[in-house]
């Protein structure tokens, strides 16, 4: 590819190819950080600077009040992920980063589905909820709201089943994840 300082015209294909970071492999990064203002901005900024699109992001307290846990999922080839995790390590407020291996990880997400369901189809919806171990958390004459937890796949399957009944809106928390076995994440 030509250098920006030369008059050679660049094709759009060339420009797009050079930014080809997304490969479809999903990563779950679990990041332990100091509970201080601005930490999330620093981390998000590092990803943005390298053209990453973060798919999900959750932040919450840990068993130690000095620290918070950030779990984020994204697509990327292994190499750019490697570079970005090294850069994350350089942040003074970041203590630990794990690129979690899907097979050795338990990941869960919570979702809320609000459905425009009246009397006629309510029974059928409740039946599906039961199969997915969903829980009804709100009901009105013209709607029902269901809470469900599980893997991303399960929530997507639930979504596909319920959508035809009239989805008003849906909210997802993004995944949190913990490593399997005795070892700490």
């Amino acid at each position, binding site marked *: 590819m*030509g*250098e920006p*300082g*030369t008059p050679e015209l660049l094709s759009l294909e060339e420009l797009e190819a050079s930014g080809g970071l997304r490969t479809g492999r999903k990563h779950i990064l679990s990041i332990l950080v100091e509970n201080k203002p*601005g930490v999330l*901005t620093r981390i998000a900024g590092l990803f943005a600077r390298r053209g990453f699109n973060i798919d999900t992001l959750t932040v919450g307290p840990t068993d130690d009040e000095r620290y918070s846990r950030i779990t984020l999922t994204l697509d990327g080839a292994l190499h750019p992920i490697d570079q970005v995790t090294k*850069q994350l390590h350089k*942040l003074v407020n970041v203590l630990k980063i794990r690129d979690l291996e899907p097979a050795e990880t338990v990941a869960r997400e919570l979702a809320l589905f609000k459905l425009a369901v009246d009397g006629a189809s309510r029974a059928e919806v409740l039946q599906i909820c039961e199969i997915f171990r969903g829980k009804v958390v709100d009901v009105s004459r013209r709607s029902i709201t269901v809470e469900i937890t599980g893997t991303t796949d399960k929530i997507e399957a639930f979504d596909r089943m319920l959508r035809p009944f009239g989805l008003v809106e849906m909210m997802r928390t993004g995944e949190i994840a913990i490593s399997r076995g005795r070892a700490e994440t």
Partner: protein
Amino acid sequence: MRAVDAIVECLKAEGVEVVFGLPGGANIPTYDALYDADIRHVLVRHEAGGGHAAEGYAKATGKVGVCLATSGPGATNIVTPIQDAMMDSVPVVFITGQVRTDLLGTDGFQEADVMGITMPAVKHSVMLRHPLEIPRALHEAFYIARTGRPGPVVVDIPMDLTRADIPYEPVEDIHLPGYQPTTEGNAKQIRQAAKALAAAVRPVLYTGGGVISAGASDELRELVEAGGFPLTCTLNGLGSFPAPHPLWLGMLGMHGTRTANYAMDEADLIVAIGARFDDRVTGKLSEFAPRAKFVHIDVDPAEIGKNVPAHIPIVGDARNVLPRLTEEYRALGAEQARLESWWQRIHAWQERHPLRYDDTTDDEIRPQFMIESLYRATDGDAIVSVDVGQHQMWAAQYYHFRRPRKWLSSSGLGTMGFGLPAAMGAKAGMPGEQVVCITGDGSIQMNIQELATCAQEGIDVKVFIMNNGYLGMVRQWQELFWDRRYSAVDLGRWPDFVKVAEGMGATGVRLSSKVTLEADMREALETPGVVVVDVPVTAEENVYPMIVPGGAAREMEG
């Protein structure tokens, strides 16, 4: 005590003798504490000058530089020096005033989101929320700035905090759970590297600014001389190894020597020490050093494997790693003769492709001749700061540095306007040394106001302006790659730098006689006070050799 007095106590405890800055509403209390503190404050004329001065001070002395700026525009004016310090790993603590906490986020007068604006440009930054945090935060800032891979740290202090009454005790127990640089270097990896060096028949050592930051020049020399290895330096690494030297190939990269670039191209082993394979070094990355294996020694693990794969990565401080590498290498008893044919090849390149230029037959001064004259006039022993552009490259090519911390260059960011304030900072930190600034007629105008600072403060820098009437490097690219369409590079004949110098309280001279140039330069160097030397040079001279943009290192032109 007043929180601002605690700030001053912190600075003293950190051994700060000089700070650079400019006061404003939000840091008046801090300046009140400085009024009778035993710390020299250099009042710059623009905060950018203060930031670069702190960098120059840090680069020349090896200590942490300090720059003060007020909130809002004061702080935004130091964004360039902050990024500059980040790119070249310069330890500087920037202390910015901020509006009082109850005004934060309300678009208060002179409010700017300093944390947000500087976040991608800092090694670390913190905005204080409570006066009791001040001492620890400042000590941590110094610690973070100077350890590991050095860099800029910003401490943003809302004004109301500085007016509090707090106790001060020096903080010595700094423990940052998320910041523990690896400095030792893995013993097994070091042994592997020694073996690779002993097995290599075409090795090259490639050293950067990291060697200087680590204070590892003597250790580097030991290794190089133990093995008789050829060595090349990056722009930022000049002075890490004494030049000229029989084992030194010159600088590498876009305007490096052919020998250095050819050696990298044909090497079977490249040992990178505190260098980061910048695009100006590698040329076309896919064709960079195609036969080489890489040993990469760096204190920053994120540099290793970033641009080229490291076959033997060593995370550590060069000062710790190099002596052990030398020891391991010596123990292997490698046969020196294996490098003979490699050296023959290198010597042939050196003979065929020395740095050269066509000198004039009349009295016109070639820019290269100007640098050579200055090299002789200063006996090759000055601290040299440069700005950015053609003069910077010629200075790098024709001024040789025998010792580290003599060469102050904005190498990574390439900031025009760096040179004069950096020279000012260096001279403030090293008053006994001859400090010269080599600059261009374009660059000098970007922070020329600091001449007044130098004059007022008695900081006697000597400024040599290579005056070709152009933004020369851009003109060169337009000549070579854009059909000589000289768009927006002609600076005309103004200003008259001699008159500007006089107006700023400096001595101004114009040297246009080639025959007496060196002697005239010596006279200027011996003139007391700040001296500005305007040297008209060939207007359209190009920096060669050159790796053409997008080209491979072996395809050098000129």
